[in-house]
């Protein structure tokens, strides 16, 4: 009996991500949620600008490629046009927490009944490793070569905490994909974020603390350790909003 295989909601196109990039794990978790809920035929995904820009090649459901940061607005349009469809956006930290922050906050504030998967790896991957809104204090990147100086470059944005100040969101959780236990928790959270939409509960966002070995300049496993040692202490995992509870 097969106990683990590639989910149906992923296409056969090989992922272009770097070795050890956790986007692949998160793609799989999204696809598993879609499979488990049996919603592939009515799901429409919105791809971001960033490393996951070509997510539209990987998910087997209908896909729309949005402009940088605008995925929540595009998702809003799709959901309003087709309320019975299941709409998710898949966005990185530059996309969701910097250029698209206005769309993120406003869509959450409206309680739009969509699912947002937010991949926080504290760096701009696609453009080659520049400082992200979520880069840690002191983190060395191409555009913070002496380390992120909070005096001039400010502090990271904590999206779950920020959105938890709003009335409307139904579900906000921060998870990580740095070890088996955390991946399994992330899987449950992502599936819940989709199930909420199926049940009409409203805006659900899962922030996934993840790794970028290439641009962090680390071996893949070393990057996962860095998630554990540096990222998670700054971005505490847990549920920030759950209207069910």
């Amino acid at each position: 009996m097969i106990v683990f295989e590639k989910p149906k909601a992923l296409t056969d196109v090989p992922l272009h991500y770097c070795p050890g990039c956790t986007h692949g794990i998160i793609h799989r978790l999204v696809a598993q949620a879609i499979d488990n809920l049996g919603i592939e035929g009515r799901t429409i995904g919105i791809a971001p600008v960033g490393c996951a820009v070509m997510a539209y090649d990987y998910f087997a459901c209908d896909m729309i490629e949005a402009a940088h940061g605008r995925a929540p607005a595009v998702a809003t349009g799709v959901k309003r046009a087709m309320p019975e469809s299941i709409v998710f956006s898949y966005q990185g930290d530059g996309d969701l927490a910097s250029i698209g922050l206005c769309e993120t906050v406003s869509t959450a504030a409206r309680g739009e009944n969509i699912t947002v998967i937010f991949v926080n790896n504290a760096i701009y991957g696609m453009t080659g490793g520049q400082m992200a809104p979520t880069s840690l204090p002191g983190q060395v990147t191409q555009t913070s070569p002496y380390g992120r100086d909070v005096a001039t470059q400010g502090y990271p944005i904590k999206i779950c905490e920020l959105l938890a100040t709003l009335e409307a969101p139904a579900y906000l959780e921060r998870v990580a994909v740095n070890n088996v236990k955390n991946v399994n928790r992330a899987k449950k959270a992502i599936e819940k974020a989709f199930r909420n939409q199926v049940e009409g509960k409203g805006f659900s966002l899962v922030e996934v603390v993840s790794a970028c070995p290439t641009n962090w300049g680390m071996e893949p496993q070393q990057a996962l350790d860095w998630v554990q040692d540096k990222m998670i202490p700054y971005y505490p995992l847990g549920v920030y909003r759950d209207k069910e509870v």
Partner: protein
Amino acid sequence: MSEKVLMKGNEAMAEAAIRCGCRHYFGYPITPQTEVAAYMAKRMPKIGGVFLQAESEIAAINMVYGVASTGKSAMTSSSSPGIALKCEGISYLAGADLPAVIVNVPRGGPGLGGIQPSQSDYFLATRGPGHGDFHVVVLSPASVQEMADLTVKAFELAHRYRMPAMILADGTMGQMMEPVVLPEGKPIEVDASDWAAVGTEGKRKHHVISSLYLQPEVLEKYNFERYERYEKVKENETAWEEYQMEDAEICVVAHGITARIARNAIVMARAEGIKVGMIRPITLWPFPEKALAAAADKVNSFVCVEMNMGQMKEDVELAIRCRKPVSLCRRVGGMIPTSEEVLEQLRAAAKGGEQK
């Protein structure tokens, strides 16, 4: 259905959009087009449609992009500074070959400019409002009736050619009240089943709406194909109106409100024995190049009347290949030329005078 009602241009436009099947409107308040949003806010909830006040013009155009991706009619409206913000989204709509209607009720600029009427977004609209090689259909109404009729036309063309269409009105057209016969309530039928992102229902390979093509030869191919489509738009959809051109020695070129003012001036000029006619472009893109080129064979000179520094004049000169002199009567910053000012220019043109 031929009953005339008295309506503001902005409201006639909104009602016409609803009557031809638009059920999704996304906007952000900005003078002088806010009536469109207010009208949609009142009407849409009553007819099962969607009105959403977006957080910004950028969000509004991207919501339009989302609806357009499902093959349905969507509309947004704004004025110059807001349209500048929408340009990113318009480029993506064009790049993904999506239909959408964008209303621009321009105001004087640049920058925050003013809130009085202007035609200073002519370049912005006709050169492809955004980055990259593309065009949008640009329609210029000169009456409240045309505000309604050209709105329907905009949706038709957007769907037929899978491209964005822009209604370039101006503050006077938007605010003016005139009797109008509203179009019949006949939704535009479109079959988008071979491309729209509406869910696979497990029956087909996924549809992807995107403007990203990383292989240069593929991107080039799509650009070429798009421009072949544009040639068809030029061939089939170029629209203009001629007024007293039969014996004209001077040809006025004006669109929108300035065409109405010019019309008065032409009557006055003819009373003085100056033979003036007018070509009024209704589509600014595609521009009525052939009509102007034909006119250049007959008239002695052209006079453009514009509420900008002479943006359309360049298109006139291009269309006639500079074979005849083109002079300009212009007011900017929200100022509207008077019939007398236009008449002055016509007199000067009749004497072979230069641009003032």
